[in-house]
């Protein structure tokens, strides 16, 4: 039977010492290896070759498992359990940070995704869209940024009973808001108007975000035919804070009709 190497012997001892902390394990292994080294050298000085000396020195140590069990019995389980409890608590805390909706880390993930992804919102805009434009228009409102990432001209009848107007097309605007500091929550997008008109939020808007790091909205604005520019304003407190101008193309509408 092949003799155990010094490392194998140490491992066999340590396998029986579950109570040892990492530092204790290192200390035990080091002491055993030093003992084996000293005995091996003494045997080699006595005339044995290295292989024989190594085998004899390991054999002289005795049963590795029994040594480990005796050693383990003399260690306190206190620090072993303290270490286990601390590790478990750290794992639970990390899981809570990562998994909990609205957590600071999920907030940062949403915020970064909102600012960097080409198509941060995967929901389809509308099946009756005449055209859809992927855009990346950003305005800054204090510590928040509003990013308009998609606009579409949609054939969607509207009527304004009060003003006595009606039309066939609406401008759909998909926008995101995020805080400049990714660890801060996003404010809801509100106060958005187009050519002075209020819009309405469309769709169930199942925001893919955790409602903390980013806010996603699809707003529909009535659009009178032939208007060449849509001026979108953001006035969260009743005062216009930012403006975006979008050229409106009616060519596709003409071709379609």
């Amino acid at each position, binding site marked *: 039977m092949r003799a155990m190497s010094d490392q194998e012997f140490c491992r066999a001892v340590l396998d029986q010492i579950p109570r040892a902390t990492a530092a204790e394990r290192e200390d035990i292994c080091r002491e055993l290896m*030093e*003992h084996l080294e*000293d*005995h091996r050298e003494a045997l080699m000085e006595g005339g044995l070759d290295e292989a024989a000396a190594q085998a004899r020195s390991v054999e002289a140590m*005795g049963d*590795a498992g029994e*040594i480990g069990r005796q*050693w383990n019995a*003399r*260690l306190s389980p206190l620090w072993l359990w303290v270490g286990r409890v601390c590790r478990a608590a750290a794992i639970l805390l990390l899981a809570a940070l990562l998994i909990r909706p609205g957590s600071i880390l999920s907030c940062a993930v949403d915020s970064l995704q909102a600012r960097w992804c080409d198509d941060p919102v995967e929901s389809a805009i509308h099946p009756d869209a005449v055209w859809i434009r992927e855009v990346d228009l950003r305005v800054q409102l204090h510590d928040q940024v509003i990013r308009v990432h998609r606009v579409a001209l949609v054939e969607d009848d509207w009527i304004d009973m009060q003003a006595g107007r009606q039309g066939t097309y609406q401008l759909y605007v998909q926008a995101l808001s995020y805080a400049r500091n990714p660890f801060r929550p996003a404010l809801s997008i509100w106060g958005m108007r187009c050519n002075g008109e209020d819009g309405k939020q469309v769709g169930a808007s199942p925001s893919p975000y955790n409602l903390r790091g980013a806010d996603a909205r699809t707003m529909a604005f009535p659009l009178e035919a032939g208007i060449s520019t849509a001026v979108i304003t953001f006035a969260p407190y009743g005062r216009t804070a930012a403006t975006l101008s979008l050229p409106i193309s009616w060519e596709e509408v003409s071709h379609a009709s």
Partner: protein
Amino acid sequence: MRQKQAMEHTSLVVLHLLSREDMYGYQMIAALEKQCEGAFTMKEGTLYPILRGLENSGAVTAYRQVSPAGRERKYYHLTEKGRKQLAEETRQWRAYEGAINAVLNMG
């Protein structure tokens, strides 16, 4: 002999070795072999759990130091508590030894 469980023989021997000078593990083994001329043998690895037990009880302390051979080793030092323990256990052993001898010398 008092109704108290006597220390393991090996522990008693180890404490006595350390009463002369601080030693590291293999040094103790080598000293035992030389002193006892083979009459007292033990599996060398079992020395270390014993040393750990003595450390736990406060009879010895350990520290690292460079040996005369130039290598760092873990030395063990007999504490004052260990000296008292050694004295008491030696006394008990001598009493035990005397009692055995008395029986063996009976006619």
